[in-house]
């Protein structure tokens, strides 16, 4: 008989057995400990809000109006639900609550106490309470404390510090948050969203980040600028439409669109020829923002773009401005390219113009002739299902008349519609 390493297998089995035993006992223990600390953490989170609650209900520190507003805006049940679901933003305070905070802590002595707790307390959650209070109090002297806590390794402290700074909404807090955005790649979206709620006055700070080497920093800086709808940095934005990153170029187009300055028109029209579909799509949206229904002429060429997403974007714009787009669409319908004809049909149908077309058909005379001609071209180009919905709103006589017109154009289509609508309102 061979040696089957019985001793080795025995030793391995014993080792594995003890490892399994440790895990069998360790998993519930670890789970229990985790559960305990989580419950404790939630309690602490609740305590933050409850402290404010007590403050609000204290007649010496809050007026009846403030109390009423506070009670109306946040019920204890909402708060408990929020804490239980661990949505930490909800431990923050609404406008009414903030004013109570400010009233209470605005004295410099109180601010100093808070700063001391925020910087030195051994209890992390007391620190967070203090950091939040500093943010809501909005005292400029607290910036240094918040800056230190913002760049701490502890995720919770850093997170709440960012949100506290977000509440200050002044150029100094913006500068700190922008620095944080630049150095911390994990929370850029969140910081950008916070900064997007700052007054546009901080845009001169934000624009500096568009020089950063990291594409993501440039991108978020542009996203912040887009939410300001500010037109004071058009030249820099125009430069960014030539950035190496498509994300940045697209965001720059978006910014130029919302900035509302027509001097960027030529740049945006140039972006319609970008090599990346995403940039072209953003440029279409931006041109629509700037020009309204006049944008039709500028974007119409992209109806035959390689990217179906760009085409979809253009279709949407044309459908929205159908009156201006109609001459172009009629040209497509009269043309030879089957795809353009189909797209024209889709745009006319999705814009709701079919209802007007039917009304024109019922009008008689030259109007009817023109409408009949357009309908004929549409049917030839493949209009099919989209002809039905507008017929629902017509009365029986009108429906019959339209059906008669359709029969003149194409007997099969008319029969199909009649079949489809049988048993519905008109038959």
């Amino acid at each position, binding site marked *: *008989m*061979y040696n*089957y*390493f*019985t001793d*080795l*297998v*025995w030793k*391995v*089995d014993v080792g*594995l057995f003890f*490892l*399994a035993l440790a*895990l*069998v006992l*360790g*998993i*519930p223990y*670890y*789970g*229990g400990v*985790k*559960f305990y600390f989580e419950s404790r953490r939630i309690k602490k989170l609740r305590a933050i809000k409850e402290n404010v609650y007590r403050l609000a209900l204290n007649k010496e520190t809050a007026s009846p109006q403030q109390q009423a507003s506070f009670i109306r805006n946040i019920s204890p049940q909402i708060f408990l639900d929020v804490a239980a679901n661990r*949505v*930490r*933003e*909800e431990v923050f305070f609404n406008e009414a609550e903030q004013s109570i905070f400010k009233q209470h802590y605005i004295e410099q002595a109180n601010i100093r106490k808070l700063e001391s707790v925020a910087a030195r307390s051994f209890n992390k959650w007391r620190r967070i309470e203090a950091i939040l209070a500093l943010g809501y109090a909005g005292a400029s002297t607290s910036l240094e404390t918040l800056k230190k806590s913002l760049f701490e390794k502890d*995720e*919770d402290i850093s*997170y709440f510090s960012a*949100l506290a700074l977000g509440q200050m909404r002044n150029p100094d807090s913006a500068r700190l948050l922008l620095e944080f955005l630049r150095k911390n*790649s*994990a*929370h*850029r*979206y*969140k910081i950008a*969203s*916070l900064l*997007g709620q700052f007054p546009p006055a901080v845009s001169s700070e934000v624009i500096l980040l568009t020089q950063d080497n990291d*594409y*993501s920093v440039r991108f978020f800086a542009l*996203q912040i600028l*887009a939410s300001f709808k500010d037109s004071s940095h058009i030249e820099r934005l125009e430069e960014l439409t030539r950035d190496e990153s498509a*994300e940045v170029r697209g965001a720059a187009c978006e910014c130029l669109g919302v900035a509302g300055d027509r001097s960027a028109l030529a740049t945006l029209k140039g972006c319609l020829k970008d090599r990346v*579909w*995403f940039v072209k799509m953003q440029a279409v949206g931006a041109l629509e923002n700037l020009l309204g229904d006049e944008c039709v002429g500028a974007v119409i060429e992209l109806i035959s773009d390689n990217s179906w997403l760009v*085409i979809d974007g253009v279709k949407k714009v044309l459908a929205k401005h159908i009156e201006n787009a109609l001459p172009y669409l009629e040209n497509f319908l009269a043309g030879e390219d089957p795809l353009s004809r189909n*797209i024209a*049909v*889709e745009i006319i*149908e*999705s814009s709701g113009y079919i209802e007007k077309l039917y009304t024109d058909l019922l009008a008689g005379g030259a109007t009817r002739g023109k409408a009949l001609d357009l309908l004929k071209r549409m049917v030839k180009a*493949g*209009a*099919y*299902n*989209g002809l*039905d*919905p507008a017929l629902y709103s017509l009365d029986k006589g009108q429906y019959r008349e339209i059906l008669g017109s359709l029969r003149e154009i194409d007997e099969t289509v008319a029969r199909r519609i009649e079949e489809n609508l049988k048993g519905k309102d008109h038959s």
Partner: protein
Amino acid sequence: MNQVLWAQTIYIAFIIFLVYFLLLVVFYVLLAFFGFLEDKRRSQEHEGESYPLIYFSNLAIPVSIILPAHNEEEWIRESLLSLLNLNYPAFEVIVVDDGSIDKTFEILNEMLELKAVDRVYTKHYPEGKVTAIFKSDKYPNVTVMRKTSGEKKAGAVNAGLNIARHRFVCTMDSDTVLERDALLKIMAHVHRDPERIIGIGSSFGLVNGFIVKNGTIIKRDCSYRPIIAYQNLEYIRSFIGNRLAWSRFNATPIVAGGFGIWRSDILYELGGYSSDFSSEDLEFTFRGQEYMAKNKEKKYKIQMMPYYVGWTEGPSDVRSLIKQRDRWQRVVIEGVIKYKHMMCNPRYGTFAFLVFPYFVFYEVLGVFFEVSSIFLVTVGLITKMVDVKTFLLYLAFMGLVQLIITLLSLFTFIRGQRVFKMSYILYLILLSLFEFFSYRVIISIAKLCGTYHFMLNKRSYDQYTRPKRAT
């Protein structure tokens, strides 16, 4: 065969199996370690994330959700409602009725008040024959496509892709009920680096036993039926035990079809899903990995999140379970064979040296190691070449290896989980003690069937009979 030859064969096989299982334990301990780190990292990010800020922000990246449905009259209502209830500011839903012959379309029509439209689009992806497109009067962000069946789920998803408008596309199964914050949680991560994250998936569990009403889970009673609980355990092992660790090395091998998000331009570059395989998700992720390796300079990422984003229906009897796992095994073998050039090829990095060999030696060949080793030691015992003590020690060894693998995954899982009650976790621990002699046997049979059917060139997407959901 003479006795000496038998004895030699058993001896050599014994050594091979011993080394195999020892390596497996070491491998899983390492996986658990890295999975634990990854889970911790993601949990911290999750806790620091400001979801309401994203929800109310105008910076949210819109998503197209594609819901393919083939004879799903039992599930489609709840799945669709769970999508319509999603807490996300910008998304469209494209339901693809893939040749259903039951009441799926009637239910959709009643729920959505559909109106047929003429929609022009370019068929970038092979989709089969689309017969009609409808827009919902009630929900402007919902489109329904009807197509003939025959191209499996891949064809149905491709049809949806052809009209999807947004930059990120989420594909899911029609029996999956999503958590309200599913998209918000996953897209919050995408928002951090939309230029590099090209694919992302997350965990889900079994909805069996839950009560779902109007697309919302109103009672989360996890089923204590062993066949369901073992599957929950297996999902934990797969999502938390394996895929999280792979994700840490940017070597995610599969973004599950039940819920996965891909960047649409990458889907386009890769030509959409392929219906040549028994299922589309694994093959597509392998293709994604290949694409990432070819475009190394772009530093693309395919990632896995630990959050439970949805709940799917699992087989509730042995026959259905075998049918499902048979298909899964075929999917793995098909993927491994098609992408065999990636195996230990330095060009494909971690994926080639850790994930691919894992798929070959554990997912494909593992069942043969297990079955053959048990068979050979049993033969050895019968022919008296192996004594009873060695036989029992060897069986205990294999059982303990399986147990350790499961417990390590559970240890990682318990860290961040807020999904199961502690009593259920204790029940899962108890079940894991018996897994090797019960559930594992069923899975081994299914894997052998899958391998056999693969060799018979079977490539169908078999749907098992699913139980009625509690209401």
